């Protein structure tokens, strides 16, 4: 009886392992490839990248027809990445994805009453309370701590009025995304001093 169940048991075990691996690791690999591709796209300008036409397929195979996307691949390392987004007067949303495809942070035009938004991304730090750091507004800039080494910020707006497209494209084009140099160590805190 036991010997008869041995091979089906092995097949079942492999099925469970394959199922878990597929569900947990495939999205992570997919996201990594997507970030690589978007990173390559943004590298020539090293900045905020507007995705037009077929380029939007890097975000979704089913893009809404009139959606305009701008992306910033974030790799803060030890430093910070600053994204300054020029915002259209109409609906927009900003979504930040981790390298596993989870949404880390999101907001839309209802939350920001301004024509531009500056976001600083940096790695999450330990807090005295042990609780994870949360995004904060500091000197007019939104500071978003990241738990993953790479992330993707996607700014979306909807342009179904042809006359508005050029204006919104111009606004998006003047958005920037750049690595900031690491802050200088405070005197007396370095190991050599």
């Amino acid at each position: 009886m036991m010997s008869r169940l041995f091979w089906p048991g092995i097949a079942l075990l492999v099925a469970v392992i394959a199922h878990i691996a597929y569900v947990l690791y495939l999205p992570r690999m997919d996201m990594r490839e997507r970030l690589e591709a978007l990173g390559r796209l943004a590298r020539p300008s090293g900045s905020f990248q507007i995705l037009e036409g077929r380029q939007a397929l890097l975000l979704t195979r089913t893009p809404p027809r009139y959606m305009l996307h701008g992306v910033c691949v974030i790799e803060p390392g030890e430093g910070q990445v600053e994204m300054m987004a020029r915002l259209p007067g109409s609906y927009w949303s900003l979504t930040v994805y981790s390298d596993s495809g989870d949404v880390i942070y999101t907001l839309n035009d209802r939350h920001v009453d301004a024509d531009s938004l500056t976001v600083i991304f940096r790695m999450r730090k330990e807090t005295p309370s042990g609780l994870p750091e949360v995004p904060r507004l500091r000197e007019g800039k939104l500071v978003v701590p990241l738990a993953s080494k790479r992330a993707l910020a996607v700014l979306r707006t909807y342009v179904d009025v042809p006359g508005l497209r050029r204006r919104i494209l111009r606004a998006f084009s003047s958005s920037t995304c750049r690595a900031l140099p690491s802050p200088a160590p405070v005197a007396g805190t370095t190991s050599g001093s």
Partner: protein
Amino acid sequence: MAWRGGIPVSGLLKFLIAVAVGLAAGYFSATYMASGHAFSGAVRLGAWTAWPQSGREDASPYSRLHFLMRGQLPPSHFNRLEFEAVEDDAGDPLRAGCTYRIASTTLPARWWALTLYPEEEVRRGRFGNVREISSRTAILARDGSAAFIISRRPRPGNWLQAPPEGRFILVFRLFGPTPLAREKLLSRPPARIIREVCR
């Protein structure tokens, strides 16, 4: 018993078959769950499927797999609700040769868009023949509901052109729903999909 290199051939064969069967079962069970079946985190509302927790860190892993398998980053549940239909209310696939009437309820979102994608193009990763009507371009009833017609030939009203052939997918995206509106939207289908005639 036949031996080759110290391993019994029948045992090796059984092992390989067990691994192959296991891998296939693991793959198909994962894709089955990611297509929106029970316990996957998806919600079925009539012909529509929604993933209300998409994008959240604590979302079902099938939700993430579902969107990434479709080549899409998961939408933020906070900003957007997406409903997807591949069949009509009777459970038949959406086909280019048929005419469909779609009757939406009042949609409590800041704006919405109904988009039609030819299935073949989505599968091949093409982007071109996408048809879309948004809340800004649609003709709405007084209560905010809308009626759409999908057919190959032009029809008066909110007309979406069906592709020349094959099947198609409908995606209803609702942007900026309030938490209360989300509850309401997830309690009933956003629209009925009724097949009229097929050629």
